[in-house]
Structure formats: C-alpha cells, structure tokens
C-alpha cells in the first residue's frame, strides 16, 4: 500500500471512532439534558394550556420530577467536568483517567 493509501486507511480507522464517541456524547448528552428539562415540567400543564389564566394554572414542578431532573443534570455535569479535566490534561500533554470514577489527569508514558 502506498503512503496515500495509508493516510486514507488511518483516517477511516480514526473517523468512525470519532463519530461513535461523538454521537454518544455530543448527541446523547443534549438528549439527557432535554430529558431533565422534561422531568422538571412533570405534572405541569403542557404548553398552550396555561395561557387562559396565567400563572395560577401553571403549577410547580412535582417533587419526583425535580429529583429525576437533578439526577439527569448530574450525569451531564459529570461529563462536562470530565471534558474540562480532559482539556487540561491535553494541554499538559497528558491523558485522562477514569479510575475510581472521578476523572483525573494521568501522566503519559
């Protein structure tokens, strides 16, 4: 295989992993975030039904909804924290480690 072919092969090997990881994190996390927002709205009238008598008909989020939403937002926050640790690690030329669940910087080599 010539050098050009190698470049194409290495690119294709990398790109589907980028796509896979990005779909999980880049599309999955917004979906989880949206589920959190939906949970907050549990037990409240849907859009459009509150407009007749304003705030009185809007109601507050249900307790269960708030707990579920909190858990979903925590998942998102955890991933954001991991992303920040990863950016710092890359800046130092290091890598990220998920040992003990908490994302930490792992020295390369």
């Amino acid at each position, binding site marked *: *295989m*010539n*050098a*050009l072919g*190698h*470049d*194409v092969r*290495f*690119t294709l090997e*990398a*790109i589907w*992993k*980028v*796509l896979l*990881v*990005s*779909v999980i*994190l*880049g*599309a*999955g*996390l*917004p*979906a989880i*975030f*949206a*589920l*959190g*927002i*939906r949970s*907050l*709205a549990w037990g*409240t*009238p*849907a*859009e459009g039904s*509150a407009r007749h008598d304003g705030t009185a008909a*809007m109601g507050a989020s249900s307790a269960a909804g708030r707990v579920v939403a909190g858990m979903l937002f925590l998942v998102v926050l955890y991933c*954001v924290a991991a*992303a*920040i640790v*990863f*950016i*710092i690690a*890359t*800046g*130092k*030329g290091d890598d*990220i480690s998920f040992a003990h669940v908490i994302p930490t910087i792992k020295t390369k080599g």
Partner: protein
Amino acid sequence: MSAETLILALVVVTALGFDFTNGFHDTGNAMATSIATGALKPRVAVALSAVLNLAGAFLSVAVALTVTNAVVHIQQKDGTPSPSLTADGGQQLLMLVLGGLIGAIVWNLLTWLLGLPSSSSHALFGGLIGAAIAALGWHGVNWVGDGTKLGGVVGKVILPAVLSPVVACIVAAAGTWMVYRIVLGVAARFTDNGFRWGQIGTASLVSLAHGTSDAQKTMGVITLALIASGHWHSTTSIPVWVKLACALAIATGTYLGGWRIIRTLGKGLVEIEPPQGMAAEASSAAVILASSHLGFALSTTHVATGSILGTGLGKPGAEVRWAVAGRMVMGWLLTLPAAAIVGAAMYGIGHVCGDVGGPVVDVAIMLGLAGYIYLRSRRSAVGAHNVNDEWEGMPASGAAVSAPELTSGGVA
C-alpha cells in the same frame, strides 16, 4: 540592529499578529449560536470566550514545537530546525516562516471581510507550504504521511477537512432531532431557561478547547524562530514571554470579535433556536475533544460549521441556506492554495530584496493589504449592534466584493 535581529523581531510580531487574527476569526465557532439566540449579549459572549481562550492558552503547557512537521520539511523530528536551513544564521528559515505567516494573515483577513468562517490552521499550513515550495522546491512539502501514522498534507489537512464537517453535521442533527422530540409540548418557561444554560456551558467548553489547541501553534512557531536564530535552545520548554504574549494575542483577538463571521455562522446558515444552539455546541465540543483524544487533527471552524448546519437539518421544518454553505465550502477549498500563493510570493519577494530589505518589504506589503481590507470593511461595518439583524442575503460588503476580486485579492 543586525539583519538577524531585525527579521527575528518581524517574525515574532507577525506571528503574534497571526495569533490575533486566529482569535477573532474563531470567536464565532463557539459563540455565534449563543449570540444569535440571545442566550448571551454579544459583548458578554465575546468577553467570556476571550477569558476562556486566555485560560486555555495558559493551560497548554505541552510544547507544540513540531507543529510545522505535519506539512513541511523545515524541522527535524525533535523540533530543532533543519541544519541546512540555519547554516546562514537562520535567515532562510525565518524568511520562510515569515512568508508563511503573512500568507495566513492575508487569507484570514480576506475571509473575515467576506464574512466566511475558514480554518486559521489551514491558512497557516497553506502559507508555510507555499513558502516551502518557493524556498526548497516541491520536495520541501510533506505531501503524505510516512505510512506509520497520519501525516502530511493529505492526512493532516485534506482528509480531516472533508470528513470533520460531515461528522459534526451528523452528530448535531441527531442531537437536535432527539432534543426537539423530548421537549415536545413542554412549557416554554422550562425550556427557555434550561437551554440557555445548556448553550452557555457547551459554548464555554468549545472556547476553552480552542484556547488550548490554537495558541499552542503560534507558541511553537515563535519558539522555532528563536531556536533557528540561536536565541533559545530547549526543545522541551518555551520561553515564558512567548506563552504570555501568545495567550494575550489570541484572547485580545477573540474579544475584538469577528462580528462579520459571527453573523454568517449565527444568522446566515440557519435560524437558530436555543435547543439547536445547545445541540450544535455540544456536538462541536464532543467532536473536537474525541478527535483530539484519537490524535486526529481537525479544524474547530469546520466542526462548528458542520454542527450548525446539522441543527438545521435535525429540526423538522428548519431552513438551511445552502447558498451560504456553498460559499463557505468554496472558501475552505481555496484556503490552502490561496494562502500558499501569498506565502510563496512573500518568500520570493523577500528573497529578492535581501536580508534586511526582504523582511521589511514583506511586512510593509502585509500592512498595506491589511489596511486596505480594514478600510473596505468600514463600508459595511458589522458589530455588536447589528450582528443579529435579519439575514437578507449576504451583508452588503459580501455582495459588493465579487468573485474576481476574491481571486485577485488572494494572489496579491
């Protein structure tokens, strides 16, 4: 001042100038969506992005000294300059780097005038490739990788440029589609505030990642120039003042805000709503970080543009302005050759005008072109006050500058 000191000083100042254009060219990558949806006021958005770019630049402790190795043969594997180029006290290498930087700056300014988001890294690579061809001939360029890992113009520039917008587009479209399905029927008082914070968070991540990756490149170029001229010897660390100057240059550029480009990204491609803004920036952050983890070099600009396009495709009924997208793709295709032609011309002119006159004439030409482009931009200024105005075709200047001028401007 000796000839060597003069050219070194000009290279350092020009490199910082490039870093500055890199900053304002890319503000929109992170902040265009938040500005367009009103999640952040325009001035607040660029200030936040500037602070995060500054922080990101300081976080990058790794030495990106071998940044040019991806595309040209002017450095050895350990980052030191090729001995053949430094035999004359570094003059030839500095001239080559200066030509490359000027090619990148001129292209960045021209695309900014036209409101086109284009990759600053590709402009830098293009400029260096042109200057290397002029200085060393065809073999001065690292066209393809060495067969052991991704490398060369094909592996580090062309293939990522073709594929990364597509990946970002798919991810953002999937994210947008799911988010709209999930919050269907939820009252606006829940979605508005929630997605506002979602947008600010994801856009901040993109800004931080940008600061760490892009400021490093200029730091590497300046350090290379210092080594070539014998003012620095370490290949594992960079001078503190270089880091400080680069961080400030990219942050100042970001704060200035490339409003023309922000407008195209935020208003031109797609009319963006808060859920789309969050989906776009989440997609950008994920693609940038995932590919950086896998050692796959891609441009923040291509990813951000692909993501914004994807949110238009993922939301049922949303309109994508394909004419605007087409203009952008044309810009991307031209980036490498256009910057290369300027880079080669600058090296040639500098070579003819001698050790002292060459760099001075080059920088004078660059300043002249920059001044002209700035004056052209004043005819239809875009700023924080009108960045979100209704999109009616391209901004006035974009329509006024016709395609033939684009070509001649790129060659000049």
